[in-house]
């Protein structure tokens, strides 16, 4: 296969899972037609991944999959003693326990097939030397802890690493990982092995997302303790997993040539997580603003009797729909004619949907709050007076951008990039005015007050809508995002740009 310009490394997303990251990858590839791409999808196992959901654009020249739970194929048993290699490995493990990844490069080399004194999966999964290391490490750090859990956790942790170390990598001038974690590690491996560039874009912060998963995971064994411990305190195994993800992130940050995220808040978290500030840049998501111009005009022309408030999003706990429903009740007592919509997929968490329906009945809102399920938002936006977002976690939600582009004032919880979106990031941006209200999470009262203000003060609502429209147009255009990445590719992969005008804009900004 020919060497492509850019190799995307997608972990658990594109092209199998529909979502923000996948849409973003797809947009970039299909828009930057002059750049040749390859793509590596990292999945759990072949059986678990379902169907491909995106048609790969024509400029994807090579596509590969790596399955983390695929047992390693390289099981060659070596009888040479390689005592030094194992000593090195044990020292490296101690390093990791202290959070030191300085020897990672050497170890990646050690575990790469074909290198001198290579350590194979056989050594790690069946070998006597590694068993001794396991025992010593156990005694040092896990003494008294359930041994079987320790043992299998270590095995489960090692297996994906071998899948990556022995995986088949497309050749590319630049590797672009869509998160840290396994994708990040593969990027580091590729960079070291192929002497290529490596950049990283995190939409959500990987370690934070894993933290949420780990605290929710029921299956991990936690030791029993007699003393009362705060619920958030992690068990040893959970800690071990967190440590692993943290180290993987650090590794990716260390070797990435540049690190991107969507907004300043995330950038700060990356820096906290060990990313060198000088490498961290922000490239916000963008939308096709022109596509919303028509909706904007339609909305101006629309005439209707009652004000309409809408929460746009999947009905799942992370969107905290219940807070919205409670706020609806409060709004209703002030603005009795208001109508409320919950627009979004109802299939993901049926239990939660049921709970929400029950809450609606208890609050006697059946006539006022409607859960539609999945809908075409373009048909709804022209009739909405206020878009609400009560999520407890978001990155840079598209729905806010879309609402702003249509000129709808937004009431959003203070998560992710919402503050920047509604109130502006830079001073210049802030001068455009507010596009809505920011509320605290899980706060029905604040949410309701903000909605009431928007509904009652039509003048202010119009000003907010205009400010939002202007902001999106200026800072959150998709072409701007695409141009920024094209420039990045040009910088790190030597890709020649052919989209002339955008090149000028970017060059100006870069300079």
């Amino acid at each position, binding site marked *: 296969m020919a060497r492509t310009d850019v190799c995307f490394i997608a*972990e*658990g*997303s594109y092209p199998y*899972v529909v*979502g*923000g*990251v996948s849409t973003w990858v797809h947009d970039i590839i299909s828009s930057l037609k002059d750049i040749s791409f390859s793509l590596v999808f*990292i*999945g*759990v*196992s072949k059986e*678990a991944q379902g169907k491909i959901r995106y048609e790969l654009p024509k400029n994807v020249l090579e596509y590969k999959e790596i399955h*983390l*739970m*695929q*047992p*390693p194929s390289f099981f060659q048993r070596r009888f040479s003693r390689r005592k030094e290699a194992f000593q090195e490995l044990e020292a490296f493990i101690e390093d990791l326990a202290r959070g030191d990844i300085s020897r990672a490069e050497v170890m990646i080399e050690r575990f790469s097939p074909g290198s001198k004194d290579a350590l194979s*999966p056989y050594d790690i*999964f*069946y*070998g*006597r030397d590694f*068993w001794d290391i396991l*025992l010593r490490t*156990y*005694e040092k750090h896990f*003494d*008294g*802890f*359930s*041994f*079987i*859990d320790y*043992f*299998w956790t270590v*095995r*489960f942790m090692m*297996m*994906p690493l071998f899948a990556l170390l022995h995986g088949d990598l497309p050749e590319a001038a630049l590797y672009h990982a*869509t*998160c840290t*974690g*396994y*994708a990040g590690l593969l990027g580091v491996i590729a960079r070291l092995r192929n002497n290529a560039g490596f950049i990283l874009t995190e*939409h*959500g912060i*990987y370690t934070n*997302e*894993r933290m*949420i*998963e*780990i605290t929710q*995971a029921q*299956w991990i*064994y936690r030791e029993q303790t007699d003393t009362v411990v705060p619920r958030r305190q992690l068990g040893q195994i959970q800690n071990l*997993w967190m440590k692993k*993800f943290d180290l993987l992130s650090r590794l990716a940050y260390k070797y990435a040539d540049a690190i991107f995220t969507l907004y300043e808040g995330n950038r700060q978290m990356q820096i906290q997580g060990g990313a060198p500030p000088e490498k961290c840049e922000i490239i916000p998501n963008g939308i096709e603003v022109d596509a919303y111009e028509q909706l904007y005009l339609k909305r101006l022309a629309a005439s209707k009797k009652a004000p309409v408030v809408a929460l746009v999003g999947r009905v799942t706990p992370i969107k905290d729909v219940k807070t919205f429903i409670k706020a609806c009740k409060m709004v209703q007592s002030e603005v009795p004619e208001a109508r409320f919509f919950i627009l979004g997929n109802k299939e993901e968490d049926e239990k939660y949907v049921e709970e929400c329906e029950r809450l609606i009945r208890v609050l006697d809102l059946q006539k006022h709050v409607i859960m539609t399920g999945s809908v075409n938002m373009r048909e709804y936006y022209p009739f909405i007076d206020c878009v609400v977002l009560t999520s407890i976690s978001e990155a840079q939600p598209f729905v806010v951008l879309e609402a702003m582009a249509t000129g709808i004032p937004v009431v959003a919880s203070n998560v992710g990039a919402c503050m920047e979106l509604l109130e502006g990031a830079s001073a210049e941006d802030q001068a455009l005015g507010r596009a809505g209200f920011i509320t605290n999470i899980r706060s029905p009262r604040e949410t309701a007050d903000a909605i009431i203000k928007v509904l009652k003060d039509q003048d202010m609502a119009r000003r907010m809508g205009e400010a939002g429209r202007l902001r999106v147009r200026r800072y959150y255009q998709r072409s701007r995002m695409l141009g920024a990445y094209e420039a990045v590719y040009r910088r790190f992969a030597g890709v020649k740009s052919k989209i002339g005008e955008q090149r000028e804009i970017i060059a100006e900004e870069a300079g």
Partner: protein
Amino acid sequence: MAGIGFRLREMAEKKTFIQWLKLYTFSAVIFAGPWLISIVTLALISAFAIPLMGHEELRVFIVNIVYIYFLSLVTTGVLHLTLSRYVSDQIYMHNSQAIGQVFVGAVALTCAVETIIGALGLFMADLDLFYKFCILGLYVTVCIIWVEMVFLSALKDYLGIVGAFAIGYALSFALGQMLGMSFGLGGLALGFLCGQVLLMGYLMYRVLDEFGIEGGFHVDFLRYLRRYPSLALAGVAYNLAIWIDKVAYWHSPSGIRVQSYFYTHFPYDSAMFIAFLTIIPTLAIFLLRVETDFFWKYKAYYGAIVHRAPFKEILQRKDEMRSVLVSAFKTSLIYQGGITTLAFILMPFLLMLVGIDPALVKVFRVGVVGAFFHGYFLILIILLLYYDFRGVVLFLSTSFLICNAGFSILAIYLGDDFAGFGYLFACAIQCLIGFLMFSNRFRNLEYLTFMRQPVG
């Protein structure tokens, strides 16, 4: 949220790793039982029938019995361990219905296959047709009893089973004698057969009573032959190994052709059978301890692993397991040492008691020492089977077969003075190798238990 990170849980949940460690409800009876029963029967026949040996018809019958045990052990050797593993797995999955079904299937299959083998074996023999049928029936019945033993061992009612065997064999002898007196060889065989059929029927009743017979039958266990080929091969190799020295002597220059192609060797056969009797009490007691004391410690050891004990506790359990073994070995060695020495010294006297020429004492003495090592070798193999070291067991069984064959042929070549030395050397060497391999595996038990679990 993007990223896999933790969706590995799907894998973790799929193979709940706690479950990989299955306790095999293995039983020593499966491996040692048929041979012990055969040897006791043959020793008793050898001892008590010797004064009657002049009687031509009795000699034919006895040599046929020997061949029946020989062939039935070797051919059903394919099944013993495989079938027992299957039953163990079904018990583990609480699938007792499948056990009843597979029991019927296994008996039917044994019946069919062994009838063919037996018929082929008897086809050319120059014997009375009625007698042939009785012998064929006896052969198939004995084979089925061996298969039943696998299922019975799961019941762990050893006393009941021993009682059933005692009564069954008593009936066989009594009926055989009764009918033999009036109807000669055919009557003798028929009477013996009747007792065995009654025993087989009773054991069958016990098994079906326990596991039920709903839902027809199947031979699902046959896939275990492919899954655990080492178990099937080890079963055949071991059972062939314990007979190969006899077979060699039958066909040696001093072997005696009794009838058609049925051979015997005197005093080699009797010496080996009777000598083995000296180890049986100790063997029985040792195996009983294995099944009780040791089995509890063994369960506690794996229980500690599965119930998330710290490593220190696992090592403690192992230590307890080892003390049981050490103490069992110690006591048994003291007793068996005494018994073997006593038998060695008193052999001429014992031989006089059963009417054998005391001049033949040497081969009996060699047999007693050989049996001593054989007994411990057997114990080691059974312990290795408990820990599921299938490869080691296959290696030991095969090397035993080769050693016993090779040394016995060498001993035959060296002359009658060396009769039994082949067996003795083979057993002693195997016992030593077995001990070294077992203690090595036992020392590395945790490593082997954990690290030999396949990934993926």
